[in-house]
């Protein structure tokens, strides 16, 4: 039974297009946002 479910999951996953590069790209973007935001937040704290 468990095997069946994993098999079903696998076929479902295979249907999804391969988007590894997309995932990597958006996460790079996300890290840039976090880095910039935190920098300005620290500038604010530094100037308090």
């Amino acid at each position, binding site marked *: 039974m468990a095997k069946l479910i994993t098999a079903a999951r696998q076929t479902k996953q295979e249907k999804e*297009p391969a988007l590894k*590069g997309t995932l990597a790209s958006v996460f790079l973007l996300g890290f840039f*946002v976090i880095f910039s935001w935190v920098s*300005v937040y620290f500038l*604010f704290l530094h100037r308090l």
Partner: protein
Amino acid sequence: MAQPLEKVDRRDAKLALAHLFVAFAALALGGFAGLLQTLVRSGKFELPAGISYYTILTTHGVLLGLVLTTFFIIGFQFAAVSRTTGALSDGSRRLGWIGFWMMTSGTACTAFFILTGQASVLYTFYAPLQAHAGFYIGLALVVVGSWVSGFAMFAHYARWRKTHRGQVSPLLAFMSVTNMVLWLVCSLGVAATVVFQLIPWSLGLTDRVNVLLSRTLFWYFGHPLVYFWLLPAYMVWYAVIPKVIGGKMFSDSLARLAFILFLLFSIPVGFHHQLLEPGISPFWKYVQVVLTFMVIIPSLMTAFAMFATFESYGRSQGATGLFGWLRKLPWSDARFFAPFVGMLFFIPAGTGGIINASHQLNQVVHNTIWVTGHFHLTVATTVVLTFFGASYWLIPHLTGRVMTKAMNRLAIIQTIVWAVGMTFMSGSMHFAGLLGAPRRSAFSTYSNSPQALEWIPYQIAQAVGGTILFIGIILILVIVINLAFFAPKGETEFPVAEAAAPYERAALALENWKLWIGLVVALILIAYTVPIIDIIQNAPPGSKGYKLW
């Protein structure tokens, strides 16, 4: 399903072109003003004949922020609607022309009073600085004209839906309508302050004005205004670019969902421009900060959809590895390259926006030149480069011509010039802003203040960037004039992408306008009712008008 027409009807093409011409004329004049501003701010150059820096700056802001954008968007949307849902009816087209002439005469009227020095109040015209009444009347004509055009689009869309019951409307039509609904709902605010407060006051019919109410109505409009600029760029990204590169749209229904989220959350957020203002409680400011953050979500979705479109296409062409798909993109096609560079610039642009909107963090950047750097990335790069990229097929499509290889190469160079110029100008604006350099200010050392002297190298870098950008303006004008009047005759495609998967039922549910407009109104009421009542009930004595320029 009936195949939509492949070509924009010739009569609709004329209407769209008329809008584009005014837009590019505004770019020419406004771009020149921009060059002068950066030169003045460098401290190495003074305007001749006693021309005021602030007259130039008002010209620049109004022509580029209000005229270029609004005209291009309405022209583009008329073309998009006609292309995807068929030729406009004669009635709708007539409305479109009425709207065009109202907007054009309004622009001429406003421009006259700016250029004659009677309205150096900048494009935000904050009371109690008081311009000549003609300035406000011209602006009111522009706004009301745009409504007339909006109604033309609504009528056309409603007719399409009546004859296509049970069908999902074409994506570009859906998006155009969403953007016009957004515009109508938000511009009610600016119309209210202009028509009921500023025009009677500048005509002398009333002698005092409620300053904070006027500003609040302005910013109720001012933030959605920037989304009104951005959404047509997103239309090109979602619905056109996939076809240009030869791929498919990543997801039709997610694109629609993103647009609905923009409609809902871009209006009840104007306080993020008023975070440092007296008279508004910090609680209500924070409520709108939270709502502002909601409007980031559809942009997160858009970022994913764009990368996914590119990666899927690249992989379908045999790309491997994590980033191999990048190499498969059509880098030498300006219709792709210009909007793509626009997308890249949206990464720092959007990041800056998140910082600006972060409640008390706004104290670090408010009214510094950082903000100017920010919106030259958003509107003057992301949006404008996408509009340029769209012009490369839209103008020849409408004029029955084709873009030559040489012009395409020039367009690639134009994009690079713009990107380099903007990196200099906007980059140094961001850094100078963090050091505290104010925006909207002519050159000044503030009595040799040590801080102000530190900003000068950055201001020189801005002038270098501004000069490079002005070369970019000349190049785009050369290309546009070529495409409109001189390019060889022929057929150019208006690219419209197909969805990768068939329409989902959800897409149909997203056309429930009564629900969306109801929700928009509810959100606006939640965000604004109490603070506006406070502003009116606790109002100080009003202000009389000042002409301090």
